[in-house]
């Protein structure tokens, strides 16, 4: 099967501010229950005699609380011309593709795979520059404002339970807004699909396929996140407000989530030189991807 990349309808940066009810249908409840220490997936949890009673009570409280929340949801996204060079993905200033504005750096799996499967890098899902085939990559950032304040209000009344409920619900809304943005980007900007579950993947820097948090800074500059959304990166690349997600979107039909796992010293050195880091800096930012020695 061939997979000729399809050109986006628009390469403008889009801003959206969906309402609570537009995204709440996409909330993934399993993670909510996991945070409360329940085992298994929702709604299967409700079938488990051991957990059912407490889970249903919690679910009811969550629905009530959700109906009262007034989240301020802000999303930004764009689909930009891009091609892969090794494990890097260059982002071009225009379709002429003669000037790279930015360069995302990715890692590659190095584990011994008994099944003989590919050793992935996210860059594999973007057409290589050498092929001469034009390709694109999506970027997004979503933040849900108001959670910290809503939780603080409950906490000031000594109601830790409601405070936690609110914090977790805002986090769920952030995740749901990311899904919503993914679908919207694919249908409205990229012109792939009809707004239903999106084709392709949306890995987030810091997650196992791209464990380097510092790559977020590139999303910040390309999407002008601070100006467009008002979210900031801390010195360690956490996002404030806390209920935020940013990431990349790949449309290759065979793109898939994976984990880089542990990398070798050869790749550590290679990556450090691509990032302009010393080895020690590389060790700090990639700690979980290294063998502890």
């Amino acid at each position, binding site marked *: 099967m061939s997979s000729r990349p399809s050109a986006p309808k628009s390469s403008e940066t889009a801003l959206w501010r969906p309402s609570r009810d537009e995204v709440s249908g996409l909330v993934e409840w399993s993670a909510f229950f996991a945070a409360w220490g329940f085992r298994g997936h929702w709604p299967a949890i409700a079938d488990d005699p051991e957990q059912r009673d407490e889970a249903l009570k919690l679910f009811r409280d969550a629905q009530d609380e959700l109906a009262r929340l007034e989240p301020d949801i802000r999303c930004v996204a764009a689909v930009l011309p891009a091609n892969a060079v090794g494990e890097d993905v260059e982002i071009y200033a225009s379709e002429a593709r003669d000037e790279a504005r930015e360069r995302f750096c990715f890692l590659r799996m190095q584990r011994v795979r008994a099944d003989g499967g590919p050793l992935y890098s996210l860059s594999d899902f973007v057409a290589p520059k050498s092929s001469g085939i034009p390709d694109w990559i999506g970027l997004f950032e979503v933040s849900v404002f108001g959670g910290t304040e809503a939780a603080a209000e409950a906490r000031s009344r*000594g109601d830790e339970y409601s405070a936690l409920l609110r914090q977790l619900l805002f986090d769920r809304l952030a995740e749901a807004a990311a899904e919503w943005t993914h679908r919207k980007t694919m249908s409205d900007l990229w012109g792939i699909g009809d707004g239903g579950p999106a084709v392709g993947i949306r890995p987030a820097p810091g997650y196992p396929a791209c464990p380097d948090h510092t790559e977020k800074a590139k999303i910040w500059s390309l999407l002008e996140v601070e100006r467009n959304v008002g979210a900031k990166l801390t010195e360690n690349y956490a996002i404030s407000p806390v209920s935020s997600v940013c990431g990349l979107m790949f449309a290759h039909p065979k793109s898939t989530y994976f984990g880089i796992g542990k990398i070798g010293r050869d790749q550590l050195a290679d990556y450090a030189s691509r990032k302009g880091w010393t080895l020690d800096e590389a060790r700090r930012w990639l700690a979980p991807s290294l*063998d502890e020695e």
Partner: protein
Amino acid sequence: MKKSEAWAALEEADSSRVLVLDGAMGTMIQRHGLTEADYNDGRFEASVPLKGNNELLSLTRPDVILSIHRAYLEAGADIVETNTFNANRISQRDYGQEGRVAELNLAAAKLARQAVDEAMAKDPSRRRFVAGSMGPTNQTASMSPRVEDPGFRAVDFDALEEAFREQARALLEGGADILLVETAFDALNVKAALCAIRSVCAERGELVPIMVSGTISDASGRLLTGPTLEALYASVRHAEIYGIGLNCALGASAMRPHVETLARIAECRVSAHPNAGLPNQFGQYDQDAKGMRAELESFVDRRLVNVLGGCCGTDPTFIREIADLVRGRKPREVPKLPERTLLAGTDVLEISERSNFVNVGERTNVSGSAKFRKLIEQENYAEALGIAALQVENGARVIDVNLDDGLIDSVAVMRKFLNLLASEPSVAAVPWMIDSSRWEVLEAGVKCVQGKPIVNSISLKEGEEVFRKRALRLRELGCAMVVMAFDEKGQATTYDRRVEIISRQWKILTEELGIPGTELFFDANILTVATGMPEHDRYALDFIETARWIKANCPGAHVVGGVSNVSFAFRGNNPLREAMHSVFLYHAIAAGMDCGIVNAGQLRPYDQIEPELRERLEDVVLCRRPDAAERLVEIAESVKNSAQAESAAASPEWRTKGACERLATSLVMGVDRYVAEDMPEVLAELKTPLAVIEGPLMEGMNRVGELFGAGKMFLPQVVKSARVMKAAVEILNPLLAESAKKSVSAGKIVLATVKGDVHDIGKNIVSVVLACNGYEVVDLGVMTPPERILEAAVAEKADAVALSGLITPSLDEMRVVAERMEEAGLKIPLLVGGATTSKLHTALRLAPAYPSGVVAQTADASRMPGVLKSLLHPVTGEAARRALLEEQAAAREKRSANGPAAKVPLDEARRRKFEGEWN
């Protein structure tokens, strides 16, 4: 199989004396000061130096090996071991010599043979023997070499069996009399070796004597991969071994208690060849021959052994002493023990006439548990393992594992799941029942199992030929087996058919194939009663009668069945089903059923079942009246309702109790509605606000802490309880003196999310859980710079600091805090948690940064109070801290010993990239 000539000679020799095995080979080779040229005279192609690959010397320096054998024979050895410890293709792969394995074994066996034949020619009065040495290889089939991937295996049963087969074949061809599977650290590796040896013996038409010798690696007397000696014995007993014993790792006196264990349980010979004491710091052995002899005296005095020799650090002077020590002394007498069934995980389970009913956990069965099936389909193995562990906790003594599902690749999933189960110590301890209707799944499953499993099941469904073949194969693989009452015509549903099939199976298995009755578990089919069809009425009774028949006619065999089938007609009515199971088991056990597949958590004691219900259940189970089923159905609904009412009614009742009890209950139930209402009464009763806090409130909170710690309470409940506590304390606070506030605290904890990290929730949960356990928490919030943490720790005179962090850079921030605490001269514990923190990282990076204190990591908040309590305990805290430091030091050592997992070099990884197929 007929036994070899050497076997008879060995039996004759060992009847009157303790046989002497030789000593170390490596120690002796070292003394020759050999160089690379001795190891490789040019005949081997090698990319690594071959010096140290002692097995090669059998080809390149046969004179050296021969002289060592001669010296041992001279010293009085009755058995000499061939120079083949590592002569298998798995170990030789390290040197690139796996193609030479047959040659090496053949040559080594011939050298030992030559030495023995010479000695016999000189002095024909005593028979001397050649034992082919078969080391464990350098891989284990029961454990993962990768910490992060416990389901991984570097080698599997088939590869081991193949390697051992090649070795055994050459050793026997070269003239070995005995095969010695030694220095075993993994019972599964041993089972593969035994399978290999027996298949080579079958090729040759005679069974040679096999000795198995294990190596103990810890003080609890277990092999490296977990099995106790009893479990090891249970796993190898099927193979008609000549002897079992111990070697290496320990000196004689440390080995003695373990040899005593073997001497007590083994129905075959017992051997011991200890090291010359323990190695000193340079890895050398200081004990001399007289010293070792002194320690071995009690082995002989107490008649613990049939074969005695030496391992690392021993030489012919030791063997001379040992030969002298045993001269004229009586060997151990092989005991005749009563018939019994031995099953094993890493612990042994003995089933004899006297033992209790064995319940087999049924929840790890995809066709029986929807929840388990879903987890397996979603590849959520972590939780699936949790289900297995819970069954063991609930009292299951064996667990049944069934992964038959059209949608999953049962063979692969069975392997994967069993390999993961092996990493869960509580589950690995019990024997497993490998359950499948597909033969490939059964065979693949048992090849992953250390210990002695039960296979469920074989039957005559596909005729006698298949039945025989499978039974023999299972016997070879060392499994007990469930034999189902099923034949070519179908499943037995009546008493007569059951007896007809089972007697035919019994005859084939025991009389024809020689399988002991103790290895058989007959499943006489528990079928559903009270279905409304009169032909089903006798199903339970017929099973019970069949159980009686089996016990009377099949000595040693067991009766097993899947109990929940019997009540299937009452799906959805669990109270009734549980009662029915109890009644059924009560009668079936009395008739001889001794093993059942049940939900271990849910059995109601027979005598607690209400008499009317019990009578109607018995009418059904024992088929006592024609309208029994109708009469049970009549009351079925009310049984269900009253069980529900019972649990519902329990709650309002607490409001009638005393005020203090009501307050405590409010807290445990997380209900804040009654606090204000009850408080005045409580205060009036206890007089002071402090007494209220220390009394009902603390009591309630302790109960919450315990229930949560034990996994019996959910987090939302805990948080609600904390809310009640807060409400109560708020009422009391204005009345409370400053000094009193302090005295109720279990300790003060400074808590923060580290610099640059915004995650809050995990930290807040930790805060709630700590508060529930009586700690005072100073929460510094998120994005907290190290300076603020230090400041607060000092100013607040904190008893501990707790840090939360969820992203990678937070790991480094935690190290910075640890360093600052060290600089500030603090000694209080530092606790860390949150995703990305780990025990390993804590041991490697955090603990060394704060040597004056301790750094502990816990995976979730519920564990934290326990850890904190033990670290802060005024009496035992010191010991707990020391234990933690030792554990971390061991983790560091293990890490540097294991080294990193193998990686594909980057340029090769690039060649193996995903191809996007653009055009």
